[in-house]
Each structure stands twice: as structure tokens, then as C-alpha cells.
């Protein structure tokens, strides 16, 4: 191949790196399964997972099974899915808004979902209704931002971002009102804790519910990665290269919003992942859309799973994961900015 011997060597290295990442995720998952207050050995875990578990009816074994399959596994699966989902949403938003500072919360989905869930918690509704309300709130916020943008009829993407900011601010204010009105003994702490983001209460059904939107939307984004990547060059160029910019943008916003709303309604507000991970992925794996998308998802999963492991083992009282992602994410990002070359963005 006269033309690209260097390219295929490059490609091979990239693929190898991805394989290493994937392997790392698998190892981390196994490790995470061993973490927890209830003592379960690695052999027991592997036994339980491969279902050839002891047929013994001893209560301790049954509890170990419960702990591994119903307490730890859903949580780990959720962390992997949410990490990937938020990172991919962040990557998509940064691309279509041509802004390295964009995050999934840009158009107000987090604030809207948080508001919906807060109202449901205020009314002391069931967990399912809280999640549903969160989902609807998230979609509503983005819809309002998009509608406002269309009403302003601006062609500029900056207007859309501004509408998102306004909608976020509005919903944050509404959340404050909900907190003010809430019963300080029971409801207010529940709302506050929920807003800080936590994977502590993830059940098997939560993990299943989460997997739908994230896998489907994630796949849709991946399949369209090249066309979406074109949007990073700007409207005019993307259009002349064959992309229906309006429709593609709407589609990406829709998919990213679905993923983000799903994560918020199950786990509360978890920030920084969507902002930080795409930068890491770009810096390590370059801009080739396929590798970028996969590495973003893998890095996101690994990051959130590691942080969640930390959240539940760092002290007796569990630290809300949203707090940790900010505490770890912010300095990490600063370090990354200090190290990265200036030429990285125009």
C-alpha cells in the first residue's frame, strides 16, 4: 500500500489502546464487585456471576447472592452506563456547539430534571413517579430552550446557548423555591441529597431502565459519528459537505437529552463527567470519530465507576457521587489544561 503504511500502523496502535481500555473496564468492574461492607470473596463473586453458585440454602450464601446481584451489580452497571452516556452527550454537545466548554447541562436538561424530581419528592410520590417526573422535567426544559430559540428566530447557535442558560437559571430558581417550601425534617434532606447525585439506591430495575436510552442513543450517535463530526467545522461547511445541519443538530440534541435525562432521573445530578471526559479522549485518542466515540464512552465508564467505588468506600457515610465528580473533576481538568498544548484549539 503505497499511500498509507504510516496510517495503518497508527490505526493499529489506536485499536490496541482501545482494547487496553476495554480490558481495564472489565478489570475495574470485577474489582468493584469485591468492594463493599458485606464480605464476599472473589471466588464467591465469580461463582455467583457464572450461576454455578452453591445450591446451599444457607442464609449467608443467599445474602451474598443478594449483595452481589442486587446491590453491587446494578450499581456498577449503572455507573458504567451513566459514565458512558454523560461522556457521549458531552462529546456530542461540544461538537455541535463547537465549544470545548459545552456539557450535557448546556440546554438545561439537568436543571429541568432536578426540578421535576424535586417537585415529585416534595409531593412524596413513589420512586417511579420521581424518576418519571425528572425525565419529563429534563425534556421540558430543553424543549422550552429550543422553542424560545425558534421564537427568537435567530440563525446563530449562540442564541440557543443563551436560551439554555436562561432556562437553566429559571429551573434552578424554581428548585430553590421547592427547597424553601419543603418540610425541613424529612423532605428537604431527601431533596438535597438527591440533588447531589448518588448511585446508592440503584435497583435492578433502575439499571434496566437506564440501559435502554443509553445503549440506543449511544449507538445512534456512534453510527452517525462522521456526519456529527462535520458539524464541528461550522454550519456552512458542514452543509456544503452534505449534512442537513438543522436536522442533524436537532437529532443530536434529542439523543443527548434523552441520555442525560435518563441519567439524572435515576441518579440525580452528576456533573463534570460530560465536560471533562471528551477532553481526555480527544487528547489521548485524537479526532478520528470512531475511536473518539468509543474511547470517550470507555473513559467515561472507567472514570465514573472508579469515582463511585471511592464514594462508597471512602468513609462510613457514603459521599454523594456528584460531589466527588466535582471535587476530582475540577482539579483534574485544571491539571489537564496546564499540561495540554496551546494549539489544541483555535
Amino acid at each position, binding site marked *: 500500500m503505497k499511500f498509507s503504511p504510516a496510517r495503518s500502523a497508527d490505526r493499529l496502535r489506536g485499536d490496541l489502546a482501545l482494547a487496553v481500555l476495554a480490558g481495564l473496564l472489565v478489570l475495574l468492574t470485577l474489582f468493584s464487585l469485591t468492594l*463493599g461492607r458485606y464480605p464476599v470473596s472473589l471466588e464467591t463473586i465469580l461463582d455467583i456471576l457464572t450461576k454455578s453458585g452453591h445450591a446451599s440454602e444457607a442464609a449467608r450464601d443467599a445474602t451474598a447472592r443478594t449483595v452481589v446481584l442486587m446491590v453491587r451489580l446494578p450499581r456498577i452497571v449503572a455507573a458504567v452506563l451513566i459514565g458512558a452516556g454523560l461522556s457521549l452527550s458531552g462529546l456530542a454537545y461540544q461538537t455541535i456547539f463547537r465549544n470545548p466548554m459545552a456539557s450535557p447541562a448546556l440546554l438545561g436538561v439537568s436543571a429541568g430534571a432536578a426540578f421535576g424530581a424535586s417537585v415529585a419528592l416534595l409531593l412524596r410520590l413513589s420512586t417511579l413517579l420521581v424518576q418519571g417526573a425528572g425525565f419529563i422535567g429534563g425534556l421540558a426544559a430543553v424543549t422550552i430552550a429550543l422553542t424560545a430559540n425558534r421564537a427568537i428566530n435567530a440563525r446563530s447557535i449562540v442564541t440557543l446557548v443563551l436560551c439554555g442558560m436562561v432556562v437553566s437559571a429559571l429551573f434552578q430558581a424554581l428548585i430553590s423555591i421547592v427547597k424553601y417550601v419543603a418540610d425541613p425534617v424529612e423532605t428537604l434532606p431527601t431533596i438535597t441529597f438527591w440533588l447531589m447525585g448518588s448511585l446508592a439506591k440503584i435497583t435492578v430495575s433502575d439499571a434496566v431502565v437506564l440501559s435502554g436510552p443509553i445503549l440506543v442513543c449511544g449507538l445512534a450517535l456512534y453510527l452517525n459519528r462522521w456526519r456529527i463530526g462535520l458539524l464541528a467545522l461550522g454550519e456552512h461547511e458542514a452543509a456544503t459537505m452534505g449534512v442537513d445541519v438543522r436536522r442533524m443538530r436537532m437529532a443530536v440534541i434529542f439523543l443527548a437529552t434523552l441520555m442525560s435525562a435518563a441519567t439524572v432521573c435515576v441518579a440525580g445530578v452528576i456533573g463534570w463527567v460530560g465536560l471533562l471526559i471528551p477532553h481526555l479522549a480527544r487528547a489521548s485518542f485524537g479526532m478520528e470519530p470512531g475511536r473518539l466515540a468509543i474511547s470517550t464512552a470507555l473513559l467515561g465508564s472507567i472514570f465514573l465507576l472508579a469515582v463511585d467505588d471511592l464514594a462508597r468506600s471512602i468513609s462510613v457515610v457514603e459521599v454523594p457521587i456528584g460531589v466527588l465528580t466535582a471535587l476530582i473533576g475540577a482539579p483534574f481538568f485544571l491539571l489537564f489544561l496546564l499540561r495540554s498544548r496551546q494549539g489544541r484549539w483555535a
Partner: protein
Amino acid sequence: MTDSTKRIIAALAMVLCLVAQAWGRDFVDMAGRSVAIPDRVARVVTLGAVPVINGFLFALGRRDALVNGLPSELARKFQYVFAPELAGKPIVQGAEKGLAVEDIVSLKPDVVLTMDLATARKLGEIGLPVVYLRWTAPEDVKALMALLGDILGRSKEAGDYAAYFDETMTRVSALIDPLPPALRPRVLYVNLRRLTQPHRIADWWIAKAGGRSMTDDGREQESLTFSLEQMLNWDPEVMIVADQGEAKMAYDDPRFQNISAVRGRRVHVAPAGAHLWANRTIEQPLTLLWAVSVIHPELVSQERLKAEMTAFYNRFFHKSLSRDQIDEILAGSIGR
């Protein structure tokens, strides 16, 4: 100074003392603050943990003096059963520390009762007669009742209560003390929605009732938060929850099905009378008896418990409760 002058001065002094008496007495509250309160207390405002403090007044037979109502999030049916007149009274507190100070002042209270020190200080500064009550150790309730009895002119009733409290403790000790550790089951009082044990006092009455409270770690903090795995590791044999909704949660959730308490159907809802029995309430002696009845059913039967309850409410709350009402209290609140 002549003799007659001395006598006039002495007489004047005595008159002044008598007059001073009519202007009220000085009390020292449980934070060491000095508060001037009139002799006859006709109007009492209760703030903060309103149902708990109301309970104190019920037991002293002074529910007539309550001038404020119950905030909706703290209201309980049985508060209104014991004091129906509370229904129409004005509510003077809202969300966290949100006191309607002007409303409180306009109620012209003779004394304001609170169990929060910051509230006491703040209202004291603007001249209201605020008495701070403290109940941290279980025995504090006796001193608290003694102070209140003094203020409200019901020292005898306060003494009666203290005696009943001690007597109940002695009775229960007699039953429980002989039990060896092996016969004391693992007990967990838990708020399942938030995975916390919200009130330290539960560790005390669980232990007194012959159980081993899994959250008894000698902590200073009021509540303790733990993880689901921790709860599974503790594997309590008896679980106590605050409402029926939580009991249902305990039985329905597949993750709890292997816990001994769930398998043995020993998840109990804490009764709720004037207040939730599991928390600090004037009904604490009943809490103790009830706890024995669920932890060691062979030592205290349901009939005995119900009889005790009827007697208590009759004697201290001056209210005859029907069998249905007793059962209702025992069933606990429905839940949120």
C-alpha cells in the same frame, strides 16, 4: 434611725416584696438562662418540635394554655384527639427556622417553649419569655417535666409522671436484666427511605427492652447514616420502622428478602400517639413496654400493653381512649 422609721422601712420592704411577687417569678431554664414568667401562666406557645412539647402539656393537664396550632407537616391525628381545640389555632412556624415572630408576639404568650437553643436566644433577645428545654439523655425528661410543672403550677403532676417513669423502668429492668446476651436479639430502628437511624434515643430503649441495637456505637450525633450492604451485614432479627409504608417496603423489596427480620416477619411499625413513640415523646415509658412486647413477646403480652396504654392516657392525658383508638395508635402512622 429611730425604731419607728426602721419599722416603716421594714413594712415597706415587705410590701415591695409582695408586689414584686405579683409581677412574676424568675426561672432558670435548662440552658441556664434566667427568664421572668408570671405567676399564673394562661398562654403558652410551643415552637420547633411542637407535638413533643404539646405532649408535655397534655401530661401536666395544661392543654388549656396552648395558644398556637400545629404546622401541617408535624400534625398528627392523635394530637387533635387529645386536644381538639388545637384545630383552629394559628400556626406560627413554617419551614426551617422560619418563625412568624410577629404572630408569636401578637399571641401575647406568658411563656414560649422550645427545644432549640438558637430559637431561644433569638426570641429571648427581643424580650419574649422563652424557656429552653433540653432532652438528650433519656432521664432528662424527668427534670424537664419538673421545670415545666413548676412554671405551669403542676408540680404534683410532674412528680407523678417522674414516679411512673421510674417505676416502669424498674419493672422492665426486672424482666430484662436476667436475660443473657445470647437471648438479646439484633434490633435495628431504621428509616428505609434514607437508610438512616434518625434518633439516638432508640438505641437506649432498644437496649433497655432487651435488644441489641445495631446502631449503638456510642456516637454523639443524633442520627446515623449507613449503606444497604451494612444493613445486610448486620442482618437484624427485629426491624422497627416509622410508618406502615416503610414496613411494606421492607417486605416487598427483593434486596431485603434474606434479612432475618423480613424472613421472620418481625418488621414492626413504631406506634404513634401524641408523637411517634420511637422518638423522644412523653409516652416514652409506653415505648419501652411496647419494645419489650415486640422483642420479647413472651414477657409482655399485647393485652397487658393495651391495658397499660389505656391506663396511661387516662391518668396523664385525662382521656379515655376506645379499643379502636388504642389499636390505631399501635398500628402506627400510615406513612408518606
